[in-house]
């Protein structure tokens, strides 16, 4: 039961993070294609957003271990 909860925590957290990351990635590529001269700044901003979203997915990962222990 604990393992199931852990797996769910990680899995559901992962879904959210994955959707968020895909939107960030897609929008960044779109913007870069539209304004190639802004590519540098867009990339920086993308990494910031990416890091923040990733943290949510990783919180699920950590939660899985915490629940399972």
């Amino acid at each position, binding site marked *: 039961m604990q393992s199931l909860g852990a797996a769910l925590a990680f899995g559901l957290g992962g879904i959210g993070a994955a959707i968020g990351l895909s939107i960030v990635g897609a929008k960044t590529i779109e913007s870069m294609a539209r304004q190639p001269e802004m590519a*540098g*700044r867009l990339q*920086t901003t993308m*990494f*910031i957003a*990416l*890091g*923040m979203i*990733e*943290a949510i997915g*990783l*919180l699920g*990962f*950590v939660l899985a271990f915490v629940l399972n222990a």
Partner: protein
Amino acid sequence: MTEKIAELLHELSVRPFSEHAAFSLTNYTFWLIIAVVLLLVFVVVASRKARLVPSGVGNIAEAAVDFVRNGVCVDIMGPEGKKCFPFIGTMFFFVLFNNLLGNIPPALPGTGTVGTTFTWAIVVFLVYNGIGIKKIGFFRYIKALVPSGTPVFLAPLIFVIELISHFLRPFTLGVRLFANMYAGHIMLGVFTVFMALALEHFTATSAIVLPLSFLMSVILRAFEVFVAVLQAYIFTILTAVYINGAIHAEH
């Protein structure tokens, strides 16, 4: 299978490096100290070799320094960002060296434990709030948590939300770095466990599992090197963003 995984997790857990050590050094801190020593040697050698026409180690260090100074500090904070470079550069080199050292097999990444990442995240938290408070004073800094123009009835709510988000920052900063390193090593370990199991009871399935696992572990190793650099970059850039937010708190 389960016991092998448990063994792997035990291997990656925080435990004393040696039972005989007088000082209770953990396995992660042992490698962390090695990484710090390597880093000190690297930067001291690089700074000795700083010439107008760079070469060798000086070249690598200068490229990295220039990347952090212009690509992170100046990019995020503007020209005054150069003043923050020593702190942000220290963050970057420390995280980078630990992450990369963790990819050389017997070593563990010094950043693969919450003891390290939370400490450094708390240092970041204290430094950026310290900069903000030093700049405009404690009460104005606290007041600046609520953006000007917020309706009065919403202000307490916004204030609480902002306060929570500020206190969550060191937590997410630490967890992100730790979980990336930890998860990466678990993945690498899992494929190693697969290979070990396939070799233990050699069957027809092993013939498929073994090369695939080997291939995956090679690919993952390369990916881990990429993640090591990327996480160092993200840790640094978020530090810069937080400091920038504190400098321009009232805008």
